[in-house]
């Protein structure tokens, strides 16, 4: 029985391929359905598991988590794009990625099976240091999804040949992308790279960052800004505007920003304190900032009953943008090495002051990574769903902080950015300066040609 193709799908199919994809496969005598004919159920479950893995796997700091999500989003898209007539692989548009495995045109594939296999394989490789329990969760999810989504995995429409071939194609795609991923400078940042960078010595001088109380931890991933981005030509491709010149003069912009942090964080309202905690998205306790945005996107796709193709495009764009945002932010952070408010305030204003809500993260101040990444995410999501799309954020329901409804993505991004000032860990100029940087990253990601010309 041929699948009923919706008007939306037809709009995708007809421009180039007409209705050829709803035709009968010549060698398997089965109806070949395009990617868009399937639900995004598989996608939802894999990303949902990834949020748990980010939270529970050692070393998944915000940049590392964003990178993992970036590769997962790309893997998903590349594994199902052969089933999306009118769309194309991003190979040739991303740095150092000249080609990826291709599906043989005369060998039908079943896209949910491809997606399940590719996501399982990529998840295993990205979280290779996950606990045994979580590794078992990955195996279990891979096996259970065909049962959980019978409408997508109808055995009457998929032969063993197609299933086998689809699993192989998915694994091949994941491993090909992983091979490329290993060359970006961020591979296994949860362990070996992090250890190898512990002897980094930050530059010293007036206004320069130094380790912060209370832990005085070594700087986190000081070379992350040199990683190969997905889309940006390099980590410096989207610079943030220059911060105010360092000064301890009371009339200087820098001093005004410093004392603002001191005053606001000391007198934060209950709402401001809630914002600070809500967007903190600390590693080890939450899915991290990138996971937060991916989480709300996952829910939004589900609530809109998005198909597999739409989910794949959305996550590829969003997650690559967030990953590149962290590279851009880290590049600027470790280029300018701006002193953190806690250090500045203790030096100039109040030697006993420390932020009370959140400990200062162990890396330079400017710009706010949250601001860069949230701004990029909101730009991409606004482009994908519409700038005024309201959404419900369930990320922190388990902590009793949700669900929260936002009017649109920009409202959420602005709240995330300013929350760092409320928390006492960033200057206002760091929150403001991160926004254009994030927008620049988003624009470059949105310029990718997903549609074939």
């Amino acid at each position, binding site marked *: 029985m041929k699948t009923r193709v919706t008007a939306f799908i037809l709009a995708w199919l007809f421009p180039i391929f007409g209705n050829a994809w709803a035709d009968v496969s010549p060698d398997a005598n089965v109806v070949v359905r395009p990617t868009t004919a399937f639900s995004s159920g598989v996608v939802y479950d894999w990303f949902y598991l990834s949020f748990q893995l980010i939270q529970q796997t050692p070393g998944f700091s915000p940049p590392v988590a964003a990178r993992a999500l970036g590769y997962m989003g790309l893997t998903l898209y590349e594994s199902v794009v052969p089933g999306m007539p009118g769309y194309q692989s991003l190979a040739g548009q991303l740095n*150092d990625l000249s080609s990826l495995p291709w599906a043989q045109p005369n060998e039908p594939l079943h896209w949910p099976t491809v997606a399940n296999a590719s996501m399982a394989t990529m998840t295993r490789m990205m979280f290779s240091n996950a606990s045994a329990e979580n590794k078992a969760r990955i195996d279990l999810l891979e096996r259970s999804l065909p049962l959980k989504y019978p409408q997508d995995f109808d055995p009457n429409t998929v032969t063993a040949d197609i299933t*086998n*071939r689809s699993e*192989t194609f998915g694994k*091949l795609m994941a491993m090909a*992308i992983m*091979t490329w991923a290993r*060359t970006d400078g961020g591979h296994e940042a949860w362990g070996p790279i992090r250890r190898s960078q512990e002897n980094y010595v930050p530059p010293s001088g007036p206004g320069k960052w130094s380790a912060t109380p209370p832990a005085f931890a070594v700087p986190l991933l000081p070379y992350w800004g040199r990683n190969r981005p997905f889309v940006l030509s390099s980590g410096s491709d989207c610079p943030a505007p220059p911060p105010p010149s360092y000064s301890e003069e009371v009339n200087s912009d820098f001093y005004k920003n410093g004392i603002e942090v001191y005053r606001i964080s000391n007198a934060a309202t209950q709402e401001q304190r809630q914002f600070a905690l809500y967007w903190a998205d600390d590693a080890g306790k939450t899915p991290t900032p990138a996971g937060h945005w991916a989480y709300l996107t996952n829910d939004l796709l589900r609530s809109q009953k998005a198909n597999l193709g739409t989910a794949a495009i959305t996550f590829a764009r969003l997650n690559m943008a967030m990953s590149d945002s962290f590279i851009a932010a880290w590049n600027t952070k470790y280029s300018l090495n701006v002193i953190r408010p806690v250090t500045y305030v203790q030096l100039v204003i109040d030697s006993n002051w420390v932020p009370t809500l959140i400990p200062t993260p162990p890396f330079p101040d400017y710009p706010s990574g949250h601001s860069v990444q949230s701004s990029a995410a909101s730009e991409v999501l606004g482009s994908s769903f519409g700038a005024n799309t309201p959404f419900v954020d369930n990320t922190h329901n388990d902590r009793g902080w949700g669900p929260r409804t936002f009017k649109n993505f920009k409202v959420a991004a602005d709240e995330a950015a300013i929350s760092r000032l409320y928390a006492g860990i960033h200057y206002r100029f760091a929150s403001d300066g991160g926004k254009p940087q994030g927008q620049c990253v988003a624009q470059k990601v949105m310029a990718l040609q997903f549609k074939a010309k």
Partner: protein
Amino acid sequence: MDSPSLVIPHFVEETDAAGLQSRFEGQDEFAVGGGVATFDCDGDGLPEVYVTGGVNKAKFYRNKSSRGGPIKLEEQRSGLEVTNATGAYPIDIDGDGNVDLVVLRVGEIEVFRGLGQCKFERANAKWNIPATNLWHTAFSATWEKGQSMPTLAFGTYYDRTRSDFPWGTCTPGMLLRPDSTNMRYATPEPLAPGYCALSMLFSDWSRSGQASLRVANDREYYKGGQEQLWSVAPGEPAKQYTLDDGWKRLQVWGMGIASHDVDGDGYPEVFITSMADNKFQKLEGNPSRPTYIDQAYKRGITAHRPYVGGDIHPSTAWHAQFADVNNDGRFDLFVVKGNVSSMPDFAMLDPNNLLLQEPDGRFTEVGQQAGIASFKRGRGGMLVDLNGDGLLDMLVVNRQDKAQLWRNLGAGAGDKTVPIGHWIQLRLLQIGGNRDAIGAWVEVDLGDRVLREELTIGGGHASGKLGWMHFGLGALKNAKVRVQWPHGDWSEWHIVEADSFYIVNQENGLQQWRAP
């Protein structure tokens, strides 16, 4: 369920009893390779065995088996004892009638010249083999038209100097062609780009009289990596077939090649081993264009998951070989399996496959019933008649474990052999440098169908053989045989008696060979 007509051979492991004691060991640089070579260097008609050991010393075993009896191997000094060996292919490079041996290594290639009576000397300098410190992983050879020395092709894996970063660093292969003296090799010609070749095979896929080089590649998908087919025309640089030529891009984790005219259409099909499902490629339509379709599923040889042991993960396949293990006149398929190391996405309990071809052209897995379902990390292997009884025995090299040997008892049990079909074994002999007539096609007419085999050097996974060509005859007491000589014409048809050895001499015709 087994077909009622299927005759399953019984194998008994004789590794220890035969005296085979070899382990292929080493860390990352020995994750691939692990080959075995078989060849007769003492003229008794029984193949000797050379087993690579990785960081261990490679071992040469003289075959001391009694015909039809248990297999006996005796380790001897031969001059072939080298470390870092990953693969080996026998070949008579100088056409002197003494088999030579190409040893692939992590590091310099070593080419040994046979001196007779299973003694060898290093001949790199004599033949001008370049001193390359690469990770050599694939080999094949052909005699180009007009040449008395073979053209040698070598494949390599990734850059050894980048062991800390083994991605995106596959090194090119190389082609060695004879220089104008026809006694040494000229400056190597690069086979670039290289995509980490794990198997190579010169084969005349279009029956044009000129072999092309098929390469199974393991890596660099994000840089355009794919399976390759190179045109190697005399006097011209090697040239890759492209989409315009009809070549369809294919990406698998290419690890091994088996090539055989399985369906009797006169053209070789190609089985490519990989991770998960394997490919069985058949020429599609016009045989002058290298356009292949996959028929692995249609024929039941995807061999993509373990068939016993309970591990549900996909398999990892390495050596592959078509040969008739039950002498029913149909080529069967042998596949060696084993996890790369402990890759979680792939089976750890991954038994070797023995897939018997049935009359309808489909294959049925009988590895467990045949007794060869080993769960070690297999790599190279060989089906070869080690005791001259017409039944193909089995060798497997395992990573970080001992090599294994099984004797084929036919329908027998315990250690008693009972024949399960008739057979013949042939060797070809011609004048000139290519004495063993590599590149020849042999046809065996069984009455209702013709078996057809191309005599090649290369392919499999790091494992080669030179010696008797084996054909099962089923119930036939005799058959007709003819040979198409390399770059030449067909011989006349010869009548051969079953269960016999023959030498087909280009000058003198058919001669029965009897064991000394």
